[in-house]
């Protein structure tokens, strides 16, 4: 015979404070667990969204990021001779040779930080249609003008539309603010020729990005690329893949550290649950004896106590998850190890994070509740009834 759920719920009310403390402890653990995974996923999602599926980015093989990649003009021209590069209606290739550098700007929160400045060709806006001007206007080709990403304008001083910033021995006017909903939001964009001149980088580009003429042409492009002896030092990657790799170091660091910490202190929470459940069993010895005398089986007692523990942990886990999901409204800006510049991203929740958190929650409940439940089910009827 099953012990009614009502009995289990009533018990929470009897030992309100202890139950609340245990629920709160589990909620904290799950909150941190989910928050850490959400942070790592947020970085990844932001950077994956930076690339477009049809674009290919060429960089130097040995380079860890765009800033340390160099593609000389000759090599750039060689890339242009390869097949599968999309053309615009005027048969101009849809390609953007880009110069990527880092400049220091003061953050509103205080302190200097690194901001990526990307010199782009006019085609860059055709191959990356997600980049939209939300305030002001596009920069004029040939002028010392730049546009800033939404996150830059939000986090750095003197970066509003209409202001001027000085770098590369020149003063640049900010004429627009753009939103790409991705890692580009943490960048400043300008005319490549102007930026190359200012930074004396006329010899070449950092990376080359172009659009494929067909979505599935990447492998045949790569085959042609690999056959070209002059391009052995370079490597084409799908743009999305390239930027995803830029997130890997950071995401890995956060995940490993976070999971290590949460697993360790989930032990703490499990032990907390165990203490609570042992106390619950000890306090209810007579009750358990009575139930056994009434004819409830050992298995029912075990199930009842285990259900109680799982319910406590599930409530805690859900509370933790609800609070963690509010984190989605927050974004943080930090230095990305791979690009060595500031990147703003928001916490992002995914179904797999929810599933993992709940799994983790039930694990804590199960591990914490199992031994006490076994003890309860093993109580000897006579001794239990006598124990008061």
């Amino acid at each position, binding site marked *: 015979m099953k012990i009614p759920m009502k009995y289990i719920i009533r018990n929470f009310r009897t030992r309100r*404070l*202890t139950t609340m*403390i*245990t629920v*709160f*402890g589990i909620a*904290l*653990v799950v*909150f*941190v667990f989910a928050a*850490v995974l959400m*942070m790592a996923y947020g970085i990844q999602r932001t950077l994956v969204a930076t690339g477009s599926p049809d674009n290919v980015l060429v960089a*130097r*093989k*040995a*380079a*860890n990021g765009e800033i*340390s*990649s*160099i593609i*000389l003009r000759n090599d750039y021209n060689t890339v242009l001779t390869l097949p599968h590069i999309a053309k615009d209606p005027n048969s101009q290739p849809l390609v953007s040779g880009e110069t990527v*550098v*880092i*400049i*220091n700007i003061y953050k509103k*929160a205080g*302190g*200097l*930080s*690194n901001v990526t400045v990307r010199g782009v060709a006019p085609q860059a806006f055709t191959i990356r249609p997600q980049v939209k001007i939300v305030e002001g206007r596009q920069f004029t080709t040939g002028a010392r003008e730049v546009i800033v990403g939404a996150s830059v304008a939000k986090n750095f001083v003197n970066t509003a539309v209409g202001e001027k910033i000085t*770098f*590369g*021995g020149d003063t640049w006017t900010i004429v627009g603010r753009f939103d790409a909903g991705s890692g580009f939001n943490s960048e400043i964009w300008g005319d490549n020729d102007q930026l190359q001149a200012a*930074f004396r980088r006329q*010899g070449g580009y950092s990376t080359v990005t172009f659009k494929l003429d067909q979505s599935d042409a990447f492998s045949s492009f790569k085959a042609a690329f690999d056959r070209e002896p002059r391009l052995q*030092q370079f490597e084409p990657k799908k743009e999305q893949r390239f930027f995803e790799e830029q997130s890997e170091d950071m995401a890995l660091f*956060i995940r490993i*550290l*976070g999971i*290590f*910490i949460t697993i*360790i*202190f989930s*032990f*703490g*929470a499990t*032990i*907390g649950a*165990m*203490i*609570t459940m*042992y*106390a619950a069993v000890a*306090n209810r010895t007579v009750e358990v004896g009575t139930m056994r005398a009434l004819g409830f089986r050992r298995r029912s007692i075990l199930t009842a106590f285990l259900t109680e523990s799982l319910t406590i942990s599930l409530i805690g886990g859900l509370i933790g998850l609800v609070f963690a999901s509010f984190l989605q409204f927050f974004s*943080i*800006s*930090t*230095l990305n190890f791979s690009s*060595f510049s*500031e990147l703003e991203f928001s916490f992002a929740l995914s179904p797999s994070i929810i599933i993992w958190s709940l799994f983790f929650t039930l694990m804590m409940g199960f591990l914490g509740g199992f031994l006490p439940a076994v003890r309860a089910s093993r109580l000897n009827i006579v001794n239990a009834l006598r124990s008061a």
Partner: protein
Amino acid sequence: MRILKLILKNSLRHKLRTFLTILGMSIAVMAFGVLRTVVEMWYEGVEAAAPNRLITRHAVSFIFPLPYSYREQIAKVPGIETVSFANWFGGTYIDKNKFFARMAVDPETIFDVYPEFIIDAKELETFKRERNSCIVGYEIAKQYGFKIGDIIPLDGDIYPGKWEFVVRGIYKPRTQSTDATQMLFHFSAVDERMKVEMPGREGLIGWYIVKIKDPNQAGTISDQIDALYKNSSNATKTETERAFTQSFISGLNSLLAAMNFVSFVIIGIIMLVLGNTMIMSARERIQEYAVLKTLGFSGGHLIGLILGESLVISAFGAGLGLFLTYPVVATIAAIVPKGFFPYFFITPTTLILSATSALSIGLLASIFPIQRAIGTKIVDGLRHIG
């Protein structure tokens, strides 16, 4: 003395519960210690910075190079002992995961400005003489098995092409916070090749390392150096090594803040575990407290009993936790590649912080039970059923 015995007896009444509480606390204290160590290691570079070293870099950002010709001009500024320089070479050794710092440096002066890199005089002589040689830090030599005479191949990115350097020395760290994970080789070897292969990129270095005679002069000397190039297209920014390192970390502030936050959440969890145990014990003993009060024991005695028990448990938990922190930190230090975290050790600050927070938790966890014990009237206490 008696009361102490009672405290110990009390804490052993529920052996399993006390054991679990101590275990839970010690694991949490250990987690706290490990997390603090990770945070502290970021700042260790700042702490280890020498006060008599200045770093002069390009004003726009550190990725832009400075002309080599600045060296002599900087050396003329009064109060300067040695001007050396370094250049971030980057590149890849075998694959990108095998990361460590590779620098093109001035072999004549680099070990003068970094006295904490200990190098054998003979090895240094050979290094100075042979242009294709390099010196590697003790930690990476250990990790990758580099021996004197080995050739280290590098695939260049900032300096494109294949490069090879012969190991001619291994430097040792002077203190545990000295970075022994760098690979140092001749700037001239890199520069010569740039002159031939990428004209226009020769004669450019990453940053100057300026050793000054009097650390108190750091501000004045920095201003004097920067004034030299104020109106040039390669303006400089000079700051103490400490400030320079600090600026690297400031970008990670929000991440470090998150880790700090988590470490305090851990403290919260420890408190919940201990608090829970104390509340349970107090609830079970309300009758006893009433009996004690009837016998004439004062509130002070009850406070001593409960607080004492809480402190005893937290002291054991903290002790065991700190004891566990050492092997865990050592394991992490052994697993994480040295190139990413040059050093990983427990600082005294971490120890003190762990111990004090564990003890203050012992204090806090007893407040609620004490309140209950004292607030309950004798009659209610005697009538109470567990």
